């Protein structure tokens, strides 16, 4: 697939890709954080980081309690966030404005690394969910000693 693109592209195309790469590097240097919004209708939006030991998944879920939320790890690399946001309507009142959404949601994420399902830690703080997943031993980076000859 990649090779075919290469074949199709003439010298002009190469310049374009180079320009695009240059622009990307420029944005990276200027602190552009590579924000790519989730597609419409996808809820919740997530941010994900990794370090050598673990993966951290974060989602904004205001108004949810831990009891409204189910978190599963399936196999070695699937994370499911499932829950319901319930409306809070005061008694004997008229609705003037409703912008906040309610209902059920499920989001299944395929993780970029195998994780150890027994080492998952989730917490909810001020409406932000943080799930820390320990990478599986096989997915952790290994330092290769270089021997002097």
């Amino acid at each position: 697939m990649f090779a075919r693109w290469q074949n199709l592209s003439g010298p002009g195309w190469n310049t374009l890709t180079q320009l695009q790469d240059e622009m990307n590097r420029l944005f990276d240097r200027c602190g552009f954080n590579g924000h790519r919004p989730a597609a419409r209708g996808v809820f919740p939006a997530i941010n994900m980081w990794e370090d050598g030991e673990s993966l951290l998944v974060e989602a904004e879920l205001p108004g949810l309690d831990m009891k409204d939320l189910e978190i599963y790890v399936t196999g070695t690399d699937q994370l499911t966030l499932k829950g319901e946001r319930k409306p809070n309507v005061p008694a004997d009142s008229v609705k003037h404005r409703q912008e906040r959404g309610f209902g059920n949601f499920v989001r299944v994420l395929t993780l970029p690394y195998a994780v150890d399902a027994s080492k998952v830690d989730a917490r909810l703080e001020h409406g932000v969910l943080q799930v820390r997943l320990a990478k599986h031993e096989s997915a952790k980076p290994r330092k290769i000693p270089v021997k002097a000859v």
Partner: protein
Amino acid sequence: MLETPELSQKSRAESSGAEHLRGGPQFVPQVDIYESDKELVLFADLPGVAPADIDLHYERGQLVLQGKVMRPRQEGTAIATEYEYGDFHRVFQLHETIDSTAIEAECNNGVLTVHLPKEQKAQPRKINVRQ
């Protein structure tokens, strides 16, 4: 009756309406507003804002809501960034019938609830009709 909106992501402020010192994007919190005989109740989604970092004040008929968001701890390399971090800001114009001295607010799980009681004279009164 309004339809219930679907679950959605927060939206960026198109015009901030106020000078913003911290830089970065600013967001308009999504709100619900209800009215009963005694009060108006406002709910606002402020994910990532600690109760101590909410600044709510009432001045000349305006209720100004500001929330300073916790920034993520920089940990390792970003793999996916589907949403951004930024403070929340929104201004509401209130009727004079609100008893500004009795406004109460609380924040729980990232949702702010503001109770805006109506002034006594603005509350509906049942009139007894004598025979």
